[in-house]
Structure formats: structure tokens, C-alpha cells
């Protein structure tokens, strides 16, 4: 990525008019740039190896990487400055630094995901992990007994109820924000945006105060679902608001010009155009809600038994079970906890893959399947006209 050529600076090369004009390459990778990068890389590795292995008594992979990186940046800057001017050298240094930020961030992501999946593998390979609950699995029980089946059921109930509550309300509110230009709409947008960063434990605390203490219900899957939907609602509204904004104004105006009332424009033009984006918004909100443990911590209670009834009795979700199992500190429980976390990560990765397949097309752009469907429809129309003898 960093290999892409920055725009040339400095005076243009002197070309005699008589010479055959050669088209200058503006893009692509120049050999000099590759030599600089490779040379600096080799130099950095060698210096770091020397410092760590031979000269100084330093140790640790982190220090090695830091030393190697610093040497790399310096050597690369010197190499570039041999054949470029000061501005281009500074550009090369900054490009290296910014790319390094990218590698650090995505490297940490890979580390987090990889470590969790790796530690979770020992629990995930047993089929009883998906079907049994923890009622018979004591701290010393092997991984072939007991599992997280009750947490899977609980997660499904909670996220299902939370979606039923938050998606329609969120969509209605997003449509309102999209259609209305009043001061109240601006206020709503500001509040919703501020609420996307509401500490999730406060959603749980609110449901605890309102639903359990004031209305007198017990801790249950339903209470946890209410807390989750309060947490997901602002997120749902914000993402669908962004998606609805991308619907081209010209499409709405075309519908208006045909005399359609606003609700028909919204129902037949705005929402279908934004369909893929809205689906993505729902999936992303699901991914957010499914992994949240803190609202559930206060509202769902905790149980090691399978509970199929979301209204009565305590229920447990995957993130909550992972948290409690790891917090207990027992080695077999920690392994099961990592199993729960890995399962959760796999679900979220799947949701993201689905979101990317569905949302891979911008508003108004058709997927290959939609294109084939449209082509079939017009072929049918042609056949119909031909049958009527209307097409010359």
C-alpha cells in the first residue's frame, strides 16, 4: 500500500523536443521505492538483531519491534533523501508512519481474534458444548460434560426480543429524522447521537430501576432484552439515518413530481432504495447487542440451568456466561469461558460476512441477482407485447 507513488515534486525533467516523447508513468510502483523499502527493512532487522543479541543486554519481542521500527524509519528517510528533495522525503516518512499505525491497529485486531479462537478451540470441539447446560458441570468436570447450550438459547431469546422492539421503533425514528427539517428533529438527532455512547451498564441499571424495582417484575430474559433494546435503539437510529441520507435527492424529487404523497415516496422509493443499507444497519446493531454483557449482568440474573421461558426465571447469555466463567478462575471454567467468547466471535464474524455480502452495493445499485431478475422481468414484458402484437 505504501508502495504507491506519491505525486512527483520538484522541477520536471528536461526533455529535448527532438527526442521521441515517452509517456510518463504516473502510477504504479517505481523500482527505487522498492529498493529503499527493502534496504531499510534489512538494515532495521540487522541492527535490532545486533543490539539485542550481541551488544546490549536487552530482551523481549516488544523492544525488538520498537528498535527495528525506529531504525527502519531513520534508514528509510536517509535512503529516500539521497535521490529526492526535502518535501518528498518528509512525505515518505509520514507515509511510513501512517502505514505503521494501520498495521499496528489491524495487527492487534488479529491478535485479539486469533487468541480468543485459539484458547476457545479446546471447548468448541466437543458437541456437548452446544447442547448441554452447566448444571452437571462442576469445577473439576472434564470438557466432555456440560456446555453453553442454555446460554445460546438465552442469547437467541434476548436478541430476538430486543430486535422486535428496537428495529421498528428505530426505523420510524430514522424516517422522521430523514423527512423532517424542524428544530425538534435536530434535537432528536443530537440526543440520539449522544446516546450511542451511553454507558451500556446504565441501560441495565435503568431497566433494573424501572422494570424490576418499580414495576416489581423479576430478573428474566425479557428484562435483559429490554435493556439490550435500549442500548441498541440509538445505534440503530444513527446507522439507518446515515443510510437514508445516501438516497439520492433526485429520486425523491422524481417521485414528488409524479404527484406521490410523502408516505408513498418513503414506502416505494426511499426505503427500497436503502434496503441493503438498512439490512446492514440491522445486522450491525445485532452484532453490537449480541456481545454486550453489562446490561444483561444486572437484569438477567445468572443460572446454570436451561431456561426456555424468557418471562419467568433467570436466564443467561453467552457474553455473561463467558464473563462469569473466566471470573471464577477455575482452569476448566476459564477454558469454557473462552469457548463461549470464541463462539460469540464466530457468530459476529458470520454476521459481518453476511452484512458485507448484502451491503456490498451502494443505494440504487443492483446485485447480479437483482440484475438477472430485472432482465427476466423485461424479457417477460417483451414477450407479452409481442403476443399482443404491439411491438414493431
Amino acid at each position: 500500500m505504501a508502495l504507491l507513488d506519491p505525486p512527483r515534486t520538484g522541477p520536471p525533467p528536461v526533455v529535448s523536443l527532438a527526442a521521441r516523447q515517452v509517456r510518463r508513468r504516473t502510477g504504479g510502483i517505481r523500482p527505487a521505492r522498492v529498493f529503499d523499502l527493502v534496504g531499510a527493512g534489512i538494515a532495521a532487522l540487522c541492527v535490532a538483531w545486533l543490539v539485542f543479541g550481541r551488544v546490549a543486554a536487552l530482551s523481549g519481542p516488544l523492544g525488538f519491534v520498537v528498535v527495528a521500527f525506529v531504525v527502519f524509519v531513520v534508514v528509510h528517510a536517509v535512503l529516500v533523501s539521497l535521490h529526492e528533495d526535502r518535501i518528498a522525503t518528509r512525505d515518505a516518512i509520514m507515509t511510513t508512519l501512517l502505514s505503521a499505525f494501520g498495521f499496528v491497529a489491524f495487527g492487534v485486531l488479529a491478535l485479539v481474534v486469533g487468541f480468543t479462537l485459539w484458547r476457545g478451540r479446546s471447548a468448541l470441539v466437543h458437541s456437548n458444548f452446544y447442547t448441554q447446560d452447566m448444571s452437571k458441570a462442576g469445577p473439576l468436570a472434564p470438557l466432555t460434560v456440560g456446555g453453553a447450550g442454555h446460554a445460546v438459547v438465552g442469547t437467541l431469546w434476548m436478541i430476538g426480543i430486543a430486535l422486535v422492539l428496537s428495529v421498528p421503533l428505530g426505523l420510524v425514528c430514522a424516517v422522521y429524522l430523514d423527512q423532517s427539517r424542524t428544530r425538534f428533529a435536530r434535537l432528536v438527532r443530537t440526543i440520539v447521537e449522544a446516546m450511542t455512547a451511553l454507558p451500556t451498564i446504565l441501560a441495565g441499571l435503568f431497566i433494573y430501576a424501572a422494570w424490576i424495582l418499580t414495576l416489581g417484575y423479576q430478573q428474566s430474559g425479557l428484562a435483559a432484552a429490554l435493556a439490550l433494546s435500549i442500548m441498541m435503539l440509538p445505534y440503530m437510529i444513527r446507522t439507518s439515518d446515515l443510510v437514508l441520507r445516501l438516497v439520492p435527492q433526485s429520486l425523491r424529487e422524481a417521485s414528488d413530481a409524479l404527484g406521490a404523497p410523502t408516505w408513498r415516496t418513503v414506502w416505494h422509493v426511499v426505503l427500497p432504495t436503502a434496503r441493503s443499507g438498512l439490512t446492514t444497519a440491522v445486522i450491525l446493531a445485532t452484532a453490537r447487542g449480541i456481545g454486550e454483557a453489562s446490561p444483561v449482568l444486572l437484569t438477567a440474573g445468572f443460572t446454570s440451568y436451561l431456561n426456555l421461558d424468557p418471562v419467568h426465571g433467570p436466564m443467561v447469555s453467552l457474553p455473561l456466561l463467558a464473563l462469569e466463567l473466566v471470573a471464577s478462575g477455575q482452569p476448566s471454567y476459564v477454558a469454557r469461558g473462552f469457548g463461549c467468547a470464541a463462539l460469540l466471535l464466530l457468530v459476529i464474524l458470520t454476521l459481518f460476512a453476511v452484512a458485507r455480502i448484502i451491503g456490498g452495493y451502494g443505494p440504487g445499485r443492483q446485485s447480479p441477482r437483482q440484475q438477472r431478475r430485472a432482465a427476466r422481468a423485461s424479457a417477460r414484458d417483451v414477450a407479452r407485447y409481442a403476443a399482443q402484437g404491439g411491438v414493431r
Partner: protein
Amino acid sequence: MADLAMALDTPVRPAQTPRRIAPVRNTGDRIFFAGTRLGAIAVVGVIGCVGTFLAVRAAPALAVAKLHFLTTQAWEPDIHDFGVAGVLSGTVLIALVALIVATPISLGLALFISEIAPEKVRRVLISLVDLMAAVPSVVYALWGLEFFEGRVVGVARWLATWAGWFPLFHVHSATTDSSLGTATTYSASIFVVGLVVSLMVMPIQCSVMREAFSQAPLGEREGAYALGGSRWGMITSVVLPFGRGGIVGGTMLGLGRALGETIVVYLIISSSYGINWHILQSGGNSISSLIALQHGDADSFGIAALMAAGLTLFALTLVVNLVASAIISRSRSGAQSEV
């Protein structure tokens, strides 16, 4: 249609005044607008209820503790000795550590994605950042507890040795002893928690900043190139000034998120209720983790005290987030797409 015909029929008056355009709404539209407005009011109502219920439930505890609630460094609701001074300072310190680490990285990452990464890779990178934001906090917490904490002790020890003169980095047992205490001196500290929280804050900051950067006008970018600027020159003279609102707003949104993080603090930190300024040293707490730790064995007065703590957190994050979203929305003028 009828309006148009009427407008054509009316004779042209000599002194023309601008015609008033009032939207004609039929019954369907009236129902539609009333319905959507009702939805919006319901959303605001629910969000308003959060604050109201917390305040009502916190009242008994606040009536007992009065202003000492903000200055007491203990949490013993049973003997009416409780306050948020310790946990509040812990919350702010954790958020500050997270912010100081996360902001430069997310700024660099946002610039990398919007300016340096090639067009084809960009969409993948954007959804990777989204994925980073959607990785559950419990996964970060487990990673922090089992993988990260043991490996960061060396860094903490190094900081305490060479930067111990800086008050925040001072470690008690490090003063005379050359071995600088055992590993447990440095584990379960505000520093470790802050670093893990910074990973969770980074994607939020990054996506807000990237959105602001990608809206820097193309004409001015090309103008900078045409004047002979390098890419970095273009970034400093066009992209960064244009995205300033996004940088500030994104940072503050990240601050709001860092203040409220529960699970990581709950699982990693060794909890204490006094003010601990020595961030490298074990011990500390945050408001959200206090709630998660204490709700299980609290009586009704203890719950009221926890509600009061929650109310403090609510007020703190609300102020931070409102300022952040006001800054972001002011910088997002003309964000409508016109095709």
C-alpha cells in the same frame, strides 16, 4: 393538479409578491407524519426516562450523603459512609490513559484508510474497523486478562524505573528497591485497564475521523497537488483543517465510551475505593465496575447508593457526548448527497 390549474387561471397582478408554497398533505400523509413524530417522541421519552428513573431511585441515598457523596473515598452504604471520589477519579484516569493512547493511533489509522490505502482495499479496511468496534467488550476483557496483562508488566516496570519522577508514574515500592517490586505490583492497574480500553475506543474515534476526512473537497485536494504539494503536504493543508471538527468530536465520543466501559474494568482491575493517582500501581476502580461488582449483595439502600453513582456517570457522559455530537454535527454541513 387542481392547484396548478387555479394558479394558471388567476390574472397576473401588477405588484407581484412571492407565492406562498404550503405543502398539501392528504390524510395518508397526515397519519404518516403524526406516526413518525410519535416514534421520535417515544425515543426521546425513553431516553429521558433513563435519567429520571436513576434520579428518583438515587434520591434516598443522596438525601443521606448530601455533598459528601462527591468527596468521600469509601463505599460502605451499610454504615452510610459512601462516595464517588475514588471511583470517579479512577473512571477519569482510565479514560485519560485510553484517550492518550488511542487518539494518535486512530488519527493515523483514519488518515491511512482515507488517504493512503488504495481504493480497492479501503472498503475492506472500513469494515475491519467496524468489526473492531463490534468485537464484544467481554472478548477484549478476556484477552486483556489472559494475554495482555502479563506481557505489559515489563513496559510498566520500565516506565516506573525511567519515568518514576513523573508523579503519575510513581510506584511506592520502587523508591529504594532496585528490583522495583514484584509483578503483582504492576498488574491489575489503571494503566493496564486503560490500554485495553484504548483498543475499544480506537475504532469509534477512527470511524468518526475517517468520515470527516473523506468529505474534504476534491477540488481543494487537487489544488494542493497542482501547487506542487506532496501527499503529506496535501493532508496537512487540506484534509486536517477540514476534518478538525471530526477529530475533536471523535475524540470526545471516544472519551464518552471510555468513561462508561464496564466489563474490562470489572474483570481486570483489583478493586479499591480510595483515590489512586499512581496509575502503574495495582488498584483502582470505575463507577460502572463499582455497579457491576456491588449490585449482587446490596440491600435497598445499597441499590439507591449505586443508582446515585450511576446518575453521576450518566451526567458525566451525557455532557461529554452532547458536546461531542454538537461538534460533529456542526462540522457535517452539506452532508446530503446530490446526484
